[in-house]
Structures are given as C-alpha cells and as structure tokens.
C-alpha cells in the first residue's frame, strides 16, 4: 500500500521564537483537509537533497479543515528534517503531508485533564485546549519553557483559556516539578495526566506521578517522535537466480521485490496477516511485523517483506526464484 499524501501550500511562515518556526498549511485545491482528534500529528515530507519525513503535531483546532498549523523547533543535531523546515521552506511552496494520525489522543472518559508541556512539547496541547474548552471538560495546562519572555504559543493559549494555563519560565524544570508535586497530590479520581516535552522532563514527571500513587493507565506520554518507517537502504539476493536488488531507504522490501517483477502474495501490507511470509536463506532480518512468533523471529528463517528489513547492509538472501 502506497502511503497517501495530501498536497498543501505553505500559506504563512513565521518565527515564534529564535529557533521555532510556524508553518500554516492550506489545501492546494480548496478541498477541506481532514478533521482530526486532539494530539494528532502529520508526517511532513521535507524537501531537500536528502528528503526527510518528520512527524509534527497539529497545533490548531481539531475541526480546522481550511488550514493546518505546525510549529517546528530547529534541531541542528537531528537528521535534517527540522533544519530543512527552517531553511528550505518558504510561503507559496507546496509540500506533501500524510493524513493526520494519533498516538496521543485524550481519554474521552477522563473527568479532568492535567496537561504538562516542556518547550516545543506544547504543540499537541493546542488542539487539546480547543477541544476540551469546546466540550466543557475540566483541564489545566502546565507549560515550562526556557525563553524568559514566554514560550512559543503561550500568548495564544493564555488568550484561549486564561484560567487553565500555568506558565513556568524555567529552563531547569525545577519550578514546574515543585508545582506538579502539589497538583498531582490533589486531583480527584478520574483525572488523567498527559505529558509532552524533552525526555528527561517527561521521565521526571512520570517518576513524580508514580511516587504520588498515579497508576500507569492514567499517565499518557508523547515522545518527540523520530519517524520510523523505512530507514537505511540494504541489499537483497534471490536464492533462485542469484539476482541482486537494492532496497532504498524510502521503499519497503515488498515494494522492491514487486518493482523487480516478483509476484509475492500479500493482503494487509501492515505486518499482520502473514500472507507475504518469505523464507530467508542467509542474512539477518530486522523484524518489524506482528505475525511471526518469537521463536520464528529468533530463527531468522522467515521475513515479512511488507514491513521488515535487513539488520545491516545485507545482502539478505531470500528463498525466491
């Protein structure tokens, strides 16, 4: 299955902080963009000599179908996607994005939400704030940032929900944790805690909540995502005729086999149905499927080419003609 993409035009681009850039994206053909659930992200195909696919939270109301907004912090040590957004994207450019999906949705049964953001981790909570406010669900947003004058999007959130926002100009996170020590001690049953920010800050909040008796099922985390999917290229050899194929970083093993004219059976292309199971004669697969049993995985005798890859550069020798 090819991933479907939406074509969007960059309507506006501006700096929210010295290293944070906001992009407003609108559909190129006027067709409304899909509505989404709070906490959703889109995968942006960032152009450049080495194109990147990076996931960014949608920082707008979840019913905003005429325009999406993302806010991107430049990570000079990253794989290059955020630098590309800062350096190579300008208003008027057309970008491909994948439709919204969500690994950080609010729990609909929660009677109250405690939202905790660190730095650019504020972005998913913009859609939370719009939705919870509209639904009349109780929530509070604790936002720590390093900018002395206020973090990205702070003004906007304070205008949207003034009673809910608690701001901490706090590069170390110590004031935030001290405040949360009190907050997390006093919230009623039915409250859910959602956290997004740098890993050390999230770990500290989770540890604090755990110490205060919060069950894991009431704590929800959004890690700054490094987009998975195809990564390193590798080589494949067909045991039958000895042919060698190269699998590129942006294609699956199954797609590469199909491009070479091989008729591999498939159904789901998601690593669950088992239809495309292929024998491995030599080499070590990087198993990413949900079909093979732990024993089958350990044997490295099989690979599910729709999602799995090769551990290393290969070649992975497949039992194919």
């Amino acid at each position, binding site marked *: *299955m090819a991933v*479907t993409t939406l074509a969007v035009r960059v309507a506006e681009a501006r700096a929210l902080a010295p290293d944070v850039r906001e992009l407003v994206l609108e559909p190129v053909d006027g067709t409304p963009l*899909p*509505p*989404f*659930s709070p906490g*959703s992200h889109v995968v942006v195909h960032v152009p450049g000599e080495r194109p990147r696919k990076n996931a960014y939270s949608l920082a707008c109301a*979840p*019913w905003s179908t005429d325009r999406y907004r993302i806010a991107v912090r430049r990570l000079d040590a990253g794989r290059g996607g955020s630098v590309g957004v800062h350096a190579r994207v300008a208003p008027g450019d057309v970008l491909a994005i994948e*439709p*919204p*999906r*969500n690994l950080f*949705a609010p*729990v*609909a*049964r929660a009677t109250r939400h405690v939202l905790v953001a660190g730095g650019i981790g504020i972005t998913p909570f913009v859609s939370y704030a719009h939705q919870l406010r509209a639904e009349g669900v109780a929530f509070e947003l604790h936002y720590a940032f390093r900018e002395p004058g206020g973090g990205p999007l702070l003004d906007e959130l304070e205008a949207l929900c003034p009673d809910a926002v608690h701001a901490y100009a706090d590069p170390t996170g110590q004031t935030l944790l001290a405040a949360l020590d009190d907050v997390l001690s006093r919230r009623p049953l039915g409250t859910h805690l959602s956290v997004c920010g740098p890993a050390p800050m999230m770990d500290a909040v989770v540890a604090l909540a755990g110490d205060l008796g919060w069950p894991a*099922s009431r704590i*929800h985390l959004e890690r700054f995502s490094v987009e998975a999917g195809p990564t390193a290229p590798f080589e494949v050899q067909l045991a039958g005729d000895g042919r060698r194929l190269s699998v590129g970083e942006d294609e699956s093993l199954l797609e590469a086999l199909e491009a070479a004219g091989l008729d591999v059976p498939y*159904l*789901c*292309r*998601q690593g*669950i*149905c*088992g239809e495309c199971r292929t024998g491995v004669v030599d080499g070590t697969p990087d198993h990413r499927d*949900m*079909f093979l*049993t732990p024993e089958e995985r350990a044997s490295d005798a099989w690979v599910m080419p729709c999602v799995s890859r090769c551990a290393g550069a290969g070649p992975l020798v497949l039992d194919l003609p």
Partner: protein
Amino acid sequence: MPATALSVPSGNSPEAIARFPFPFEADTYMYATNVEEAERPHPNGVATWGEHVYDIDEHYRFEIAERARVLAADPARCQVMPHMRLAAWDVVEDATTRLARDFPAHFSLERRGTERRWVNRLLELEQVYVVEDDGSLPMEPFEWITRQLQEDVELLDQRGDDLYFDAGILTFGADWSLDFDLGMHFLEIHGPVPRVHEMGVIPRAFQFLQRLTPGVAYRRTNWTMTVGRRLDTCTEVYPEWGPDRASLRYEEIGERLHLRVEVQHFVRLPRSNAVMFPIHTYLASLDEICTIPAWAQRLERVLGSLPQDLVDYKGLTRYRDMAVDWLAERNATRTEDPR
C-alpha cells in the same frame, strides 16, 4: 439497485447472488487475520464484491424496516455511552459522505461549513443539521444514521493502548449480544472464540486495530450458518431461532439453510480516534449457493473438513453432517449431468 426493489425477505436475485461475498478461498477453513485493504473489488469466482465500505443492495428497504422493528421491541440493541458522543458524529459524517459519493442516485449531501443537508431518496427522508450539534437531529446521532444503514456498526474507544466496546447497534448479530458485551475490552469480547488466542489471531488483530490510522479502511469476512432467512439471530432472541437448528429436516435444507457471511470493515474515525466496525450480513440459501457449482463444491468440502470445535462454536453441530450429505448429493447429481 433498482429503485423499485421490493421490500420482502424473499431471497436474492441472480445479480445479488453474483456479488455475494463467498468467503472461502480454499477447500478447508481455519481462522486467520484475513485483513485486506477495503474499497477494492474482491473476486468471488463469478463477479466481485466489496467496492464500498457501506453497501446498499436490493434488501435495503426490508432491512431498514426490520431494524426498526427490532429496535421498537428492544431499544437496548442500540447503545452509546456518553463519552462516545463525538464518535457518534464521526459515524454520521463518515456514512453520509461515503453514501453520497458511492450511491449518488440514492443519497446526496450538501455541506456549507458545519451545516449539512442530507437527502435519502430510498427512504424519502430529508434532514438539515449542524455537525456535532445533537439538538439539530430528531434523535441521537448514531441511532439516526444507523437506522439508515444495512450494517450493524460497533464502536471501540481507544484509551491508551486499550480498546473498549463503548457504543454500537446490533440488530443483525450472529449469536452475540450488544447489551452483554458493551463496555468490554476487545480481548474479552473474543474470549469465547476457540483456537484464535493460541493461534495469535486475536492478539495480532488487536495490535493492528491499535495502530489503525484514519484515511484507509480495511476489511475481512467471517461466516456461520443460519436456519431461515433470519437476520436477527442475537442472543436476546435465542428462543425464537435456536430451536430451528434442531428441527431442520433434510428436504428443507436447500430452502431454509443459509450461508451467513459478514463483511466487516475497520475504520479509524478522525475526530474521536475511535475504531469503527461496520458489519454487513449477507444471507444466501444453499439452493442459491448451488446456482454457482464451484461454490457448492467448495462449501461441501469446507463443511466436511471443519474441525469439531469450530462446528460447535459456530452452532452447526445439529445439522452439519446432514448439510454435507445434502451438498454431496446435489454436487454428485450435477457431475453426472451429461450436459
């Protein structure tokens, strides 16, 4: 579907039989996570089925009336927990959008901002409403839209890494109960199914559903058999249909015994992040199955080789052997036919 189609439960036209989702791809059957991408035609050896997520066929008016009858007798067949309100609206938006696109002769949807004007010509119904405004519809939104669908629709709420069955309508269920299962975890609902847990089928399906993303629909088929052309075989009315399984006579098999196939779709709803399963039930009598010789032969082999625990779970115990004998006799007659 011809607009003049009769609203009677009188069986299938040859056209309907040709697009029956005959579920067997081999001469033996075993559970599998038989999931594939939806909205693409699936060949059945005669024609194809599965072009759309919601199907509208010649039984539309009859099944809509049958659903209304069941709901009038037992309102608990449709239930929506309060936190599923947004998911209910997702179903309204999904169904109206797809039906207007896929069956423009029967349905139309005009959108202006959050306002909608919906026309269902098959039911001569016109409704203006505002999305996510419950008061703008004459009844609860999920019940309003599912009373216009042939599908039963079940909704799973995603809470963290778990999925809970928190809303649904079930008037055409195959021996299960919405009222009993509502609120259960996905894995609990499937607890009674033999083999699938050890085989990893259910855990894999669970992982798949957890990761399902908006925008792409998937589907699978499931099957059982029903005596009589009866859609409502929910557990609540077991006394009405259960005894038929024991009283079925050999000479009635062609007319009364039906292959019952469910086409189940999986859709991640965009606004609520809930998972939706529309389930469309298709019935074909064995006489109708026998109009396609390849299906009759395959069904004989599948039923004949079905392991006993599956026979028992599917409720076929009382008549499986008789049905195999009947199919064998029919198939033998055809083979000997000098034509």
